[in-house]
């Protein structure tokens, strides 16, 4: 009974969490907590076979299926907060409270009598006893279960199958499309700028800085932008910019090394980088011209 009184509050809190968390992944993890708690309770209730099945089938297979689908559906699957039917949420909560009160009060008033217990039935082992019943009295239901499972598997395959209306895009067709876009609308032909270039960090969430200190939007993955995890513009851009401006002012009468920003951001190395690699004008020169276009 100790296990019950420890686990029951945890399970109820986790189940309530499913109602309130915003993200579906968190709901799935809370459901896993409830299911593992139930598995332990099965063990307490002398059902070791169901304990194993609960862990393997529910937390192992079904919840992983949920997580797979969550990953396929993606980040924009979060719950909307707007009510489509007015007052529906309040009514649902009231009905739920009424149902819960009725159930709990009714169940708490009954007396179940002395617990018979499963010691006698499980004397030759719980799994053997279950198998004896399953393959004698319930053998027809067991066989029908196989038909149900095969139908579910075939049905899932039919539902998830997608007929392609057009051919799969190949690398050659995508390259041809890019060149066509370049010819028609002048879209940039080369690869997009990589994130963090010319910035203070090399993390993928850090946008590349353009020569004038603004950020290059195209250097950030669309997924990161949708999630809102893009790092803001580094705060020390302005001092760098100031240092660059001073360096430019100093340039006529000073050494060319004064072009370098004092804290190591080699803004001044941008022209020298393109200048020192004349052998590969498309490799480094292209990126410079790309960002020049964006400004």
């Amino acid at each position: 009974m100790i296990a019950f009184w420890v686990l029951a509050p945890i399970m109820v809190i986790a189940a309530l969490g499913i109602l309130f968390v915003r993200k579906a992944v968190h709901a799935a993890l809370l459901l896993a907590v409830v299911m593992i708690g139930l598995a332990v309770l099965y063990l307490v209730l002398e059902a070791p076979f169901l304990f194993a099945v609960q862990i393997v089938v529910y937390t192992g297979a079904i919840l992983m299926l949920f997580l797979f689908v969550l990953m396929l559906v993606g980040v924009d699957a979060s719950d909307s907060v707007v009510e489509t039917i007015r007052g529906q949420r309040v009514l649902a909560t009231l009905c739920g409270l009424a149902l819960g009160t009725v159930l709990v009060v009714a169940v708490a008033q009954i007396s179940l009598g002395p617990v018979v217990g499963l010691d006698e039935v499980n004397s030759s082992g719980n799994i053997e006893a279950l198998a004896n019943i399953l393959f004698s009295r319930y053998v027809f239901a067991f066989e029908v279960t196989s038909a149900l499972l095969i139908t579910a598997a075939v049905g899932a395959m039919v539902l998830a199958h997608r007929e392609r209306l057009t051919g799969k895009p190949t690398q050659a067709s995508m390259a041809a499309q890019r060149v066509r876009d370049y010819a028609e609308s002048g879209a940039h032909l080369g690869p997009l700028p990589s994130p963090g270039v010319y910035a203070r960090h090399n993390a993928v969430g850090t946008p590349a800085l353009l020569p004038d200190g603004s950020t290059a939007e195209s250097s950030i993955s669309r997924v990161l932008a949708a999630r809102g995890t893009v790092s803001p513009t580094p705060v020390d851009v302005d001092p760098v910019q100031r240092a660059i401006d001073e360096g430019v002012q100093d340039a006529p009468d000073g050494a060319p090394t004064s072009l370098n920003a004092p804290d190591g951001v080699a803004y001044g190395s941008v022209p020298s980088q393109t200048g020192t690699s004349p052998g590969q004008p498309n490799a480094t020169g292209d990126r410079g011209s790309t960002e020049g276009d964006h400004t």
Partner: protein
Amino acid sequence: MSLVPYVVLSSILFTIGAVGVLVRRNAIVVFMCVELMLNACNLALVAFAKQHGNLDGQIAAFFVMVVAAAEVVVGLAIIMTIFRTRHSASVDDASLLKY
């Protein structure tokens, strides 16, 4: 030792699952709440199996798990199909039959 607390916990979990089905908008979370209700029923079945001293309740819980697995597979495939055509996993967006 009475087994009534187990049945009470089962009813509470069932109620929470029912409220979740009514309140949540995301089809996948609604589905999780249905699973929660099935699990709550399983707990009651296993508790009554111990109460009455025979294994029929555990067999029933076992069959509920099998049916739940089949149901989850088909249901998630349906949610995937709806998401592919309507680009949303919200239960409110699948309202074409309404009008």
